[in-house]
């Protein structure tokens, strides 16, 4: 069924529209309504693949880690520190330092939190000394990661519902996009450069198609990560007792809740030995987390959890020890088929299993996905501008979409860079410093929205893109001026975290500059009065090439009318 099929219709009734036309409409609306949020989710998700590295850069006081410390030595050091810090805590948990992480992240439960305080505390520890890290107070790259699925300044549950809602729209956009673009594989490599609306469409198509496996995977698996919240019906229908719910939990989570303490004080058996047992079973660098329940009590339990590296699943895999004696009680490394499937899907989304190359592939493909959403949003205005009777006075909906595009796309880069600027510039001892780094992210993002509303659209694009370029490019300079880890020293020292991150900032700055220049040069097209436009001699081709051009145009013309007919 093509878009040109018209059924015999009763007079007065609109002709039935082909499926590609309706899917095209669905695609456009699904994409547009949530596109701005999706763009933010995509970009923050993209950088989250390097969140540990970002966190390292944001804690410049913590030295570059030359070699990964042995978990069996690190754990006892920090455990001792924690037992002094929070002696009565029912549970504390250490996330290991590894090749990407030069600190140990610990959290612990607080039995009787003070009013207004949360029920758990967290801190970051130096693996070599076991002491709390004394560096500037910052959330680090974790902010972008958390923003990605629970935003900020709103209750966590609402935010996750919103993120799931947008992800569902995205999945529909993907499926409807594929149905619309029936000739998806034929047109796979076709991309025409610099031809206004056509090249926006081609860019959007190219980015969508070559990353299609990734985009579909990342969207679907994203929904899976939040499914316990969004689709609880099967679970609540099936499990009525606490025991049943616990059995379910053990299929999906390595979390072992702390039991009732016996009250009998027994010192913890050496944790290093327990970790060594795990290392012997799994490998020296495969320890992910060590959790201790009821430390110092006779009923203490120690859970050593397998790490993420090279394991394409997050299904629970751990060794459970009796805390007071160090005796191995249980080895969990198998779950049911559906649970393992869920574990794999979840792991595919997080991408934590990968080595540096895989992580870069994730990053680049995800960046392409971000660009896919961005080009889609921009394409909407480019297309509709040609139909505006008065391009300088667009109707409100168009004006709004255009300004939101500018703020959502160009503004987000500025906001993200602003957070890194704040990390370097905010006074070290400042009250609520980490909160303020985040506030600056939003302040600058909001400021770009205001700017976008006050300036003519094209100027706003160009100005904000240049601002983003400058904000990113100057970060290494700010770093030189405020820390003792300039780019050249990091390079000489072989510190690839700092070097890599700053070089990437420069590359992203260059990308923004390129976009700014292209936007400046872009001439919006009027709905063509088909005169012989002064095309560059390029297109006065040999006959063979002309066939190519018309062939290409014919192929895309089959698509273009679908989209042009879409309602604004």
């Amino acid at each position, binding site marked *: 069924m093509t878009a040109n099929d018209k059924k015999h219709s009763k007079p007065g009734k609109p002709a039935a529209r082909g499926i590609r036309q309706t899917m095209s409409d669905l695609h456009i609306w699904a994409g547009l309504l949530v596109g701005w949020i999706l763009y933010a989710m995509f970009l923050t998700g993209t950088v989250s693949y390097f969140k540990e590295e970002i966190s390292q850069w944001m804690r410049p006081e913590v030295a570059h880690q030359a070699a990964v410390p042995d978990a069996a030595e690190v754990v006892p050091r920090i455990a001792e520190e924690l037992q002094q810090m929070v002696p009565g805590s029912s549970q504390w948990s250490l996330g290991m330092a590894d090749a990407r992480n030069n600190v140990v992240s610990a959290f612990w439960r607080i039995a009787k939190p003070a009013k207004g305080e949360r029920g758990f505390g967290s801190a970051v520890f130096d693996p070599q000394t076991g002491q709390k890290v004394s560096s500037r107070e910052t959330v680090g790259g974790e902010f972008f990661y958390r923003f990605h699925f629970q935003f900020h300044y709103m209750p966590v549950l609402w935010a996750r519902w919103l993120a799931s809602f947008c992800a569902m729209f995205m999945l529909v956009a993907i499926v409807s996009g594929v149905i619309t673009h029936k000739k998806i594989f034929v047109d796979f*490599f076709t*991309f025409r*450069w610099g031809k206004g609306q056509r090249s926006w469409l081609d860019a959007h198509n190219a980015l969508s198609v070559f990353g299609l496996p990734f985009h579909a995977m990342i969207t679907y698996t994203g929904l899976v990560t939040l499914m316990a919240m969004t689709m609880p019906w099967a679970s609540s229908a099936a499990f009525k007792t606490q025991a049943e719910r616990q059995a379910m939990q053990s299929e999906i989570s390595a979390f072992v809740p702390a039991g009732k303490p016996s009250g009998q004080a027994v010192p913890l058996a050496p944790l290093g030995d327990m970790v060594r047992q795990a290392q012997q079973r799994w490998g020296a660098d495969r320890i992910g987390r060590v959790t201790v329940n009821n430390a110092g009590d006779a009923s203490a339990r120690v859970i050593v959890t397998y790490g993420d590296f090279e394991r394409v699943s997050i299904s629970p895999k751990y060794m459970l020890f009796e805390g007071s004696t160090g005796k191995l009680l249980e080895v969990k490394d198998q779950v049911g088929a559906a649970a393992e499937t869920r574990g794999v899907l979840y792991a595919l989304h997080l991408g934590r299993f990968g080595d540096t190359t*895989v992580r870069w592939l994730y990053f680049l493909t995800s960046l392409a996905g971000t660009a896919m959403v961005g080009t889609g949003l921009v394409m909407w205005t480019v297309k509709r501008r040609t139909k505006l009777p008065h391009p300088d006075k667009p109707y409100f909906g168009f004006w709004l979409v255009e300004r939101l595009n500018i703020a959502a796309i160009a503004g987000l880069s500025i906001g993200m860079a602003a957070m890194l600027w704040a990390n370097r510039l905010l006074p070290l001892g400042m009250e609520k410093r980490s909160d303020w780094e985040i506030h600056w992210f939003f302040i600058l993002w909001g400021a770009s929205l205001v700017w976008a509303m006050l300036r003519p659209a094209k100027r706003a694009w160009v100005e904000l893109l240049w601002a983003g370029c400058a904000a990113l490019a100057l970060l290494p300079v700010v770093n030189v001026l405020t820390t003792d880890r300039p780019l050249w020293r990091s390079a000489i020292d072989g510190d690839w975290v700092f070097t890599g991150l700053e070089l990437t900032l420069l590359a992203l700055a260059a990308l923004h500059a390129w976009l700014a220049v292209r936007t400046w040069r872009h001439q919006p097209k009027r709905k063509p009065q088909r005169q012989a436009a002064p095309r*560059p001699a390029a297109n006065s081709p040999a006959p063979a090439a002309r066939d190519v051009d018309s062939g290409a145009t014919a192929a895309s013309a089959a698509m273009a009318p679908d989209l042009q007919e879409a309602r604004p």
Partner: protein
Amino acid sequence: MNHLAIQLVSLPAFALLALAMDRHQLDLLGRELPPGPTRGLRMAGWLALLASLAIAVGLKGWSLGLVTWCGHISLSAAIVLLTMVAWERRKSVKK
């Protein structure tokens, strides 16, 4: 090293598949190839793609290999696409 091996096979795979399309034969070679060589190019392309999958799985096991392979072919497809775009631009600028 492992990653390079995968990419060095998947990249030509996509180049061959692209070349097996009439439109690109016209773009790059100035003429459409007869069906025989075209089919040969397509088969060679698919074989190379499968070979890159075999390399990935062989080096890293099924789960890690499959995922790594998917990442690599996305990159290969992108590189081939961008190369052809650049080629067309150069051609049109030269003329």
